[in-house]
C-alpha cells in the first residue's frame, strides 16, 4: 500500500488526543458519514424495491467483505474459503431458528458458531504462510461445501433449509423496507466495530502480524493466537452476513456458497481497497452492480452493432472481466485509494507538485 499524505485542512487543529484518534479524519468526513447513514434511513420511504434489494445485498456482502478484510487486509492472510463460512452462517442461523430460537437472536448465535468453525479452520494459520495458507483455506471451502451437502440434520442436506422470517416484538420483518433496517443496523454495528478495532490494541496487533510478524512477536504479540483470532473475527462477520442472507431469501441452499463466491469476496476487498474499512462496502457495491451495469453496456453495444445482438450475454460477462482488469490496471490499490488521492490533491492544491 503506497503512502498518501494526509494533511488536515487548515483550521482543523487537533487539540486533544481524543480528537486525533477519532474515527474520521475531519469533521466534514464524520458529518458526511452521519449524513449518509441518515439518508440511508430514509431510503425505504422513497426508494424502489429494486434499489432497496440492491442496498440490502450490498450491505450483506459488505459485512462479509469487511470480515474478509480483517483477515486478508489487516492480518495479511488470504482466504479462499470465505464463501463457505458465509454459507455456514446462513445454515447455522436457519438451524437455530428452526429450533425455535428467535431469528434476531439466531443471527448473532450463528455468527458465534461460525466464529468457532472459522477458528478451527484457522489452526493451520499458526504454521502456514502466504499462498500455502491460502490453499489450506481452499481446502476449508471444499470441506465445508461437502459438509453442507452431507449434514442433512443441520443443513437439510442437498435440498437446503428453510430460513424463517425474522420478527421483532411481533412485527414481522417480512418486506424489503423492514429488512433493510435490519441490515443497516448490522452494517453500522459491524463497521463501527471494525473501525474501533483498527484503533485499539488488538487491531494494531493484527496489522503488526501482517507487516512484520517476526518483530511483532518480539513486541509481545502471540502470533498463533492473533492469526487464529483473525480467522475468528472474519468468520464472525461472514456468519452474520450469511445469516442475514439466509433469512432474506427465506431459504438456504448449499449451491450458492462455492469457490466462486469466495473469489468474489476477495475481489470485493481488493477492488475496495485492502485493509480499508469503508472500501469493503465500496467493493461489494462494485462487484454486485458491475454485471448489471455491463448488461446495459452490452445491450447498448448490441444497439449500435446489431450483428452482435446474439453475443450480448458474452459481451456482458467479458466486460465484467475486462472491467476488473482495467480497474486494477488503473487503480491497483482500490477504490478507497482513489478517494484518498483525490482528497489529498484537493487539500494540497495548489501545492501538490
Amino acid at each position, binding site marked *: 500500500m503506497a*503512502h498518501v*499524505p494526509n494533511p488536515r485542512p487548515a483550521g482543523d487543529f487537533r487539540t486533544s488526543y481524543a480528537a486525533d484518534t477519532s474515527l474520521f479524519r475531519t469533521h466534514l468526513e464524520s458529518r458526511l458519514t452521519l449524513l449518509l447513514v441518515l439518508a440511508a434511513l430514509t431510503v425505504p420511504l422513497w426508494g424502489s424495491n429494486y434499489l432497496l434489494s440492491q442496498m440490502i445485498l450490498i450491505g450483506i456482502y459488505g459485512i462479509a467483505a469487511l470480515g474478509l478484510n480483517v483477515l486478508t487486509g489487516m492480518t495479511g492472510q488470504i482466504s479462499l474459503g470465505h464463501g463457505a463460512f458465509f454459507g455456514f452462517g446462513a445454515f447455522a442461523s436457519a438451524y437455530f431458528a428452526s429450533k425455535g430460537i428467535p431469528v434476531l437472536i439466531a443471527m448473532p448465535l450463528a455468527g458465534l458458531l461460525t466464529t468457532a468453525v472459522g477458528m478451527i479452520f484457522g489452526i493451520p494459520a499458526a504454521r502456514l504462510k502466504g499462498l500455502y495458507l491460502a490453499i489450506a483455506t481452499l481446502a476449508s471451502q471444499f470441506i465445508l461445501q461437502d459438509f453442507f451437502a452431507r449434514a442433512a440434520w443441520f443443513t437439510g442436506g442437498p435440498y437446503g433449509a428453510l430460513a424463517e422470517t425474522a420478527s421483532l416484538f411481533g412485527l414481522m420483518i417480512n418486506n424489503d423496507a423492514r429488512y433493510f433496517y435490519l441490515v443497516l443496523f448490522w452494517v453500522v454495528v459491524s463497521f463501527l466495530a471494525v473501525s474501533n478495532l483498527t484503533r485499539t490494541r488488538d487491531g494494531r496487533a493484527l496489522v503488526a502480524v501482517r507487516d512484520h510478524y517476526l518483530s511483532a512477536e518480539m513486541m509481545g504479540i502471540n502470533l498463533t493466537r492473533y492469526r487464529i483470532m483473525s480467522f475468528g473475527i472474519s468468520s464472525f462477520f461472514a456468519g452474520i452476513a450469511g445469516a442475514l442472507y439466509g433469512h432474506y431469501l427465506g431459504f438456504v441452499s448449499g449451491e450458492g456458497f462455492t469457490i466462486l463466491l469466495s473469489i468474489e469476496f476477495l475481489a470485493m476487498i481488493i477492488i475496495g481497497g485492502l485493509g480499508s474499512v469503508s472500501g469493503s462496502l465500496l467493493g461489494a457495491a462494485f462487484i454486485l452492480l458491475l454485471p448489471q451495469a455491463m448488461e446495459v453496456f452490452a445491450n447498448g453495444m448490441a444497439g449500435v452493432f446489431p450483428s452482435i445482438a446474439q453475443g450480448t450475454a458474452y459481451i456482458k460477462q467479458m466486460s465484467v472481466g475486462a472491467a476488473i482488469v482495467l480497474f486494477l490496471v488503473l487503480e491497483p490499490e482500490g477504490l478507497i485509494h482513489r478517494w484518498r*488521492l483525490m482528497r489529498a490533491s484537493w487539500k494540497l492544491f495548489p501545492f*501538490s507538485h
Partner: protein
Amino acid sequence: MALAEPIAAADVATDDILALNNVEVIFNDVILVLRGMSMAARRGQITALLGANGAGKSTTLKAISGLLHTEDGEVTRGTIHYDGVDVTRTSPDRKVKNGLFLVMEGRGIVQDMTITENLRLGAFTRPGADVKHDIEEVYEYFPRLRERKGLAGYLSGGEQQMLAIGRAMMAKPKLILMDEPSMGLSPLLVKEVFGIIRRLNKELGLSILLVEQNANMALKAADYGYIMENGKIVLDGTGEALSENEDVKEFYLGGGERRSFKAVKSFRRRKRWL
C-alpha cells in the same frame, strides 16, 4: 567554492559520465522528494554524495538507474544524461547493459539463491562471458565469500555487502552507483571496502558515484563531492575543499578535534547553508 547553482544544459561537460539537471521526483503523484537536483559525476573519478537522512540520496540513485517505477515514483522534470545520452526515460535494464550499475541500499541480494548464483546474476547483461573466471576474480577481492556455502540470505550483514559489491563487479560496469556501501561493516572491512572502491577506480578505471554517511572516508576517497539537503544540492567542491569547509566539519566530520559522544550537544546548531 560556490553555493550550487543549477547546471545549465550547455554546461554539461563532456567528461561528465553522468549529469543530472534540475531533476524533480514525485512519489505517488503527490510527495515531492527531489526538488531540482543538479549534479555531475566525472569520468574515471570518484564522486561522493553526502547528506542527512531523508535528504533524497537514495532517491537520486534510484532516479538515475530508473528504479523508481516499482515504488510508484516518477521523474517529473529535468534530465539525466549518462555518457552523453539522455537516459531520463530509458528502461533500467538498458542502462545496466550500457554499464551503469547500482548497488542498492540494503544490498538487494537475492536471499534464496546461493552466492555463486547471485554472482552469476550480476553478469546477466553479459551473455557468453567467462563467468567462472570473473567469479574467481571477485573471490580474490573477497576471500570470505568463497568459504560460505548455502543461501545468501543466511549471510551476515557484512557478508551480504561484500556479495553486493562483488555482484556489481560481475557486471563489468563503467559507472557504479553505490548506496552506503560501508553501512554495517566492521572498521576493518570499511577500510577494505574503501580500498576496493579505490582499486576499482584506479585499476579498472571505473567511475564511481558514492552515497555515504561515513563522510570522513568518503571525502578522503572522493575526487569531488556534493552535499544535499531536502532534495537538492546545497554545497559542492573537491574532496579536499569540502573537508576544509567549516559546516562540513561541524556536521559531517566532527570538527577539528574529535568530540566525545558522551559530551554531545544539547541544542541544535543552525546550518549556515540553510
